């Protein structure tokens, strides 16, 4: 259906809705996919847009009403903003069933209904089955409401006030029976133990003093198992040995308690002292170790020291201070020895690593050298070929130059008038000859340089 139809349908539907399904208290968690993204409640009468997004019908209609630009037949989906023209009420039955199956509390919980029902049944429960729904009182003259479970077969008004015949209290009609049977304080009851008849109000008091009620012996906390009638308890307590011992037990208990507390106190102090002792020991150990470290010598002085200390230990085993010192020094020596061992290991590891690195570096250098050598050979070849070509190119010029050089002296010798012309003609060739001049001696030196490079 298009948007207009949908809005009209929603408007007509809202009128006959009675229970707000969104305000129900859910008992259990429900799948988040069943949640309408607008109201964040499980879908109520869901509808589907063209883009397959599902919303509650009423949520969608209010969203359409506030978002649709006036009288356009398009509406952007709140979730994906895809324009949509059609709203489909045919949502998968599965979805509706899952939403209807969510367990909720009866909305009449305020009236006392404790029932947990599937959400789909709430409407019918509240309308038909809930015992706590309020109905107008069957008596037309009474304007109060009655819970449906209180409306009996006889359709009587329960709001009539009835005066209790015994205690002169005003009691509602429907509570009268209960009052009469159980609550009225004037009613008489018989004590279960002594068969005395007392009023209900005085029953508690009676039980406190009833001679027939069985009560435990006064020494029950010191394990006297006797539990007899109140009347006989005095006689028992006179003969009960545990009652006689009672005061003694009490003083013993008190003494035990005080001893326990002092013991706890002493334990704490002892712990503090032990901590202090351990601290002192560790500082002593530290200082002896420092002393041993300051010894400049290596192994021999240490072993000397060890011997000395062991000798001293042998000599004065009865002296506890000396013994402690001996233990500390030998401890220091072993510590140093182990330190030495670990350092030695570290050094050997390092040397291994260094040789490894060395090998790798030389390999790398070798590889690089090979490559460079090849490169240089290539370059050499190229340079050679260039040189050959240059030589080949230069050869005719050189020949010309030598020819020019040969011509010039002869002409200067023979005809001075021609000299200008000849020199002007020979000039450039002479210049090339000069420029070639440094080329030739350079060649050997170049190759020499290349040789040293290699």
């Amino acid at each position, binding site marked *: 259906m298009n948007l207009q139809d949908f809005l009209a349908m929603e408007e007509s539907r809202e009128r006959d809705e009675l229970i707000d399904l*969104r*305000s129900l208290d859910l008992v259990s968690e429900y799948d988040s996919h069943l949640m309408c993204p607008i*109201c*964040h*409640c499980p879908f109520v009468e869901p509808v589907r847009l063209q883009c397959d997004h599902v919303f509650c019908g009423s949520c969608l209609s209010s969203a359409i009403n*506030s978002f649709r630009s006036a009288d356009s037949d398009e509406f952007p989906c709140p*979730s994906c*903003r895809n324009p949509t023209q059609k709203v489909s009420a045919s949502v998968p039955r599965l979805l509706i069933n899952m939403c209807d199956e969510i367990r909720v509390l009866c909305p009449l919980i305020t009236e006392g209904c404790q029932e947990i029902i599937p959400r789909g049944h709430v409407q019918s429960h509240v309308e038909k089955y809930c015992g706590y729904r309020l109905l107008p009182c069957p008596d037309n003259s009474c304007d109060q409401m009655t819970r449906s479970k209180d409306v009996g077969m006889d359709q009587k008004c329960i709001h009539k006030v009835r005066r209790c015949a015994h205690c002169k209290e005003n009691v509602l009609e429907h509570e009268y029976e209960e009052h009469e049977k159980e609550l009225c304080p004037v009613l008489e009851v018989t004590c279960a133990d002594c068969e005395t008849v007392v009023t209900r109000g005085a029953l508690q008091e009676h039980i406190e003093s009833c001679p027939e009620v069985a009560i435990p012996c006064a020494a029950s906390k010191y394990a006297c198992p006797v539990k007899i009638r109140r009347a006989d308890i005095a006689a028992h307590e006179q003969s009960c040995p545990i009652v006689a011992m009672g005061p003694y037990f009490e003083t013993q208990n008190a003494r035990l308690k005080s001893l326990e507390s002092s013991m706890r106190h002493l334990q704490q102090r002892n712990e503090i002292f032990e901590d202090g002792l351990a601290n002192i020991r560790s500082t002593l150990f530290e200082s002896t170790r420092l002393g041993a470290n300051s010894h400049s010598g290596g192994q021999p002085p240490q072993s000397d020291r060890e011997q000395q200390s062991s000798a001293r230990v042998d000599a004065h085993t009865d002296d506890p201070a000396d013994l402690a010192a001996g233990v500390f020094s030998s401890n220091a020596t072993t510590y140093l020895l182990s330190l030495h061992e670990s350092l030695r290991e570290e050094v050997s590891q390092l040397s291994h690593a260094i040789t490894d690195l060395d090998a790798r570096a030389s390999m790398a250098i070798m590889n690089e050298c090979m490559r460079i050598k090849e490169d240089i050979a290539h370059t050499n070849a190229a340079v050679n070929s260039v040189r050959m070509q240059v030589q080949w190119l230069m050869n005719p010029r050189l020949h010309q130059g030598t020819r020019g050089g040969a011509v010039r002296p002869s002409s200067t010798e023979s005809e001075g008038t021609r000299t200008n012309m000849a020199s002007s003609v020979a000039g450039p060739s002479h210049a090339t000859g000069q420029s070639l001049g440094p080329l030739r001696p350079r060649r050997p030196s170049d190759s020499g340089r290349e040789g040293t490079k290699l």
Partner: protein
Amino acid sequence: MFATKRLSKMQEHVPPGIAIVKCDNLEEWQMDIKILDQNPLYLDQTYRLKFTFSNKYPIEPPEVQFIQCPDSTGTPRTIPMHPHIYSNGIICLDLLGSAGWSPVQTVESVCMSLQSMLTANNRNERPPGDQEFIATNRRRIRDINFVYEDDNV
């Protein structure tokens, strides 16, 4: 109408960098947001957002703006520098206008949008015409007609 449930649901789970400061009624909430990445403009800063819900929320957008807290409150908060945030805290973001709002949005999603808007920014400046705007604006946020000219942010 059903905003109550919707809002109370959020308190169970809050995304990282977002904290609820005040949510004792359904008209005004305050949230603290932090920018979680290393953007130097907002590093180690926390900003306070004020949400004002109308009774039509979530069909109508909430009013959202940054607010300042003085040092004396123990939690000093400033207005972040951003080319779309005026120095009185009003935010020019199409999501928050009635045209760009979608009822699917939540307080969390708005906070996360603002986080990402700040994260993506690298200009330490206020919008053009900031001073005149804060001096002259007396309208409520929802009545301001912003022109959302910048699509980059």
